[in-house]
């Protein structure tokens, strides 16, 4: 039975496959050529994740809207208190209607424009913190991981700084400087770079003694060049991830700082401020919209950045490129 089967397979083989091939210059060229491009593959892998792409479109639209919103027609000011035209009484806690899309807050300010203004503030804080955290964290992390003499010293400094509760530093800064966007950014940067630096350091320790770096060192490459050309490109994906996560984290700390009473003054709306204002009056069911609207906007922003960051980090890891 099996013999007959084998015979038939052998019969079907094309004998021309066993002829010697003639040399073909362009054919040989084709096998040696690869059209692999790092960034192209990264975007290709990223685009495969439909959820992340949808969130990317959503967040782009949202960010564009927050930037453009003050210049659009018929927008109200986020800090003006609106009065009833006839009676002159403040329009307090007005439920959402055509005039005030998200209603008004407890002193008659327009919640719609306050939310977009708050989103602007929070995104601004998030991006500034992300950029500074990356600059400080990567610089110190690279030195810490690569320069052996500094390892002991920086580790001890890290242990000390890591064990000082953040709240003490934040409260002190709030005393020394007036609470403002700048103070918040400084306060968050003073402590946030630690985790980034430790992360970069651990990654660098893993790859710094690989053969190509050893070879590079033997050839006399200066340290600065080894760090920027040999090591940092390896870390693009993880740095991207940390940057994307810095925004939800900064928004989270802003909410926390506002919660413990160290946030921005009320005339600078921010998502943390709005949620805190909403929390104070949440026990009245008809006023819960003042908590729900900012919470929804905040969740959409943080979740989007988190998912996009993770997907992009996966996509920029060459091991996931096919």
């Amino acid at each position: 039975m099996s013999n007959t089967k084998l015979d038939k397979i052998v019969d079907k083989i094309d004998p021309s496959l066993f002829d010697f091939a003639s040399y073909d210059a362009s054919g040989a060229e084709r096998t040696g050529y690869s059209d692999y491009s790092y960034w192209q593959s990264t975007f290709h892998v990223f685009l495969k994740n439909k959820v992340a792409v949808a969130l990317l479109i959503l967040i782009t639209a949202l960010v564009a809207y927050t930037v453009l919103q003050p210049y659009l027609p018929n927008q109200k000011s986020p800090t003006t208190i609106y009065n009833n035209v006839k009676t002159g009484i403040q329009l307090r806690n007005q439920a959402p209607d055509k005039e005030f899309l998200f209603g008004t807050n407890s002193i008659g300010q327009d919640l719609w424009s306050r939310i977009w203004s708050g989103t602007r503030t929070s995104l601004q804080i998030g991006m500034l913190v992300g950029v500074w955290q990356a600059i400080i964290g990567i610089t110190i992390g690279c030195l810490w991981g690569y320069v052996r003499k500094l390892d002991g010293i920086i580790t001890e400094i890290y242990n000390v700084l890591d064990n000082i509760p953040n709240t003490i530093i934040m409260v002190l800064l709030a005393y020394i400087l007036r609470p403002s966007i700048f103070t918040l950014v400084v306060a968050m940067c003073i402590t946030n770079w630690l985790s980034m630096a430790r992360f970069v350091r651990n990654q660098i320790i893993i790859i710094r003694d690989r053969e190509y770096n050893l070879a590079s060192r033997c050839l006399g490459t200066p340290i600065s060049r080894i760090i920027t050309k040999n090591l940092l490109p390896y870390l693009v994906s993880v740095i991207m991830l940390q940057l994307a996560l810095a925004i939800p984290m900064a928004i989270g700390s802003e909410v926390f700082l506002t919660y413990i009473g160290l946030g921005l003054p009320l005339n600078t709306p921010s998502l943390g401020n709005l949620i805190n204002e909403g929390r104070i009056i949440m026990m009245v069911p008809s006023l819960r919209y003042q908590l729900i609207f900012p919470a929804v906007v905040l969740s959409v922003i943080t979740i989007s950045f988190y998912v996009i960051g993770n997907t992009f980090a996966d996509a920029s890891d060459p091991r996931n490129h096919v």
Partner: protein
Amino acid sequence: MLKYSLKRLGKSIITLFIVISIVFLFMRLMPEEGYFGQGYEKLDLIQRQTILTNLGLNDPWYVQLGHFYKDLLKGDLGTSITYRPKVAVSEIIKSKIFYSLNFGLGALAIALVAGISSGILMARNKNKFWDKLGNGYIVIINAVPAAVYYIFLQLYVTDIFKLPILFDKGNPLSFILPVLSMSLGPTASYAMWMRRYMVDELNKDYIKLARAKGLSNRVIMTKHVLRNAFVPMAQYLPASILYTLVGSIYIESLYSIPGTGGLLVDTIQRQDNPIVQALVLIYASVGIISLFLGDMLMAGFDPRINLEKQGGTR
């Protein structure tokens, strides 16, 4: 091992010393109004100075620091200045830690069981329904600030199940929601790491060998994958247990539980230096001890890890 432990202990004590001294000096940088509370405006300059001198705050900073360490060596943390005047700091903290510890340990127990089992479930159904559901949960919990979902849980779950909104010592029903809310975050992180380590482990070559030689899936999972995946998790276990002492600011203030959560912020704002110093001492020790125990535990779980030798070509 003993030599390693001693060396590490010595280093930890130095770190603690520096941390406490820095915090001590930071607290002395604060404006003096904080020591008087509401009455500041009413007092004249001489009265203010007398009060400050009585509190020992007019001495040069090194004398103050010296006093502080002398008392500390006797095991005396001092007495509260403004938070609950004339009450021993150790007493204030002791009464509060009881609540934080109980709530924290309850939440941790739930998180360990729920997190690790759902992590295993997700790893075994990778890219299927349970995995996607679990990932959705992890993303939401990690991305949205805790305050936001805590507030919504308190608002709506108490409504739906008719649970009490605030903590009440005599009513066990009021414990449920705070403990559950506190466990949400750790559950997500335990599930995430368990899944990740298990997936990493499942992709390794020795698992392929085990499959090839015909071991049953169950043996592979329990004897190889779980044990190896648990090693890196073990490192953070002491930290999660000890950090329950710190308490949760959000939960304790939302449900008005008299725990340690808000104590640090409260006392910094009221400039009750002795309490702040004691708390910082506790928190920093907790951080250092849990790191040490974590390393020990990891070495215990995995015989390949040797803490004394400097590994590799570093």
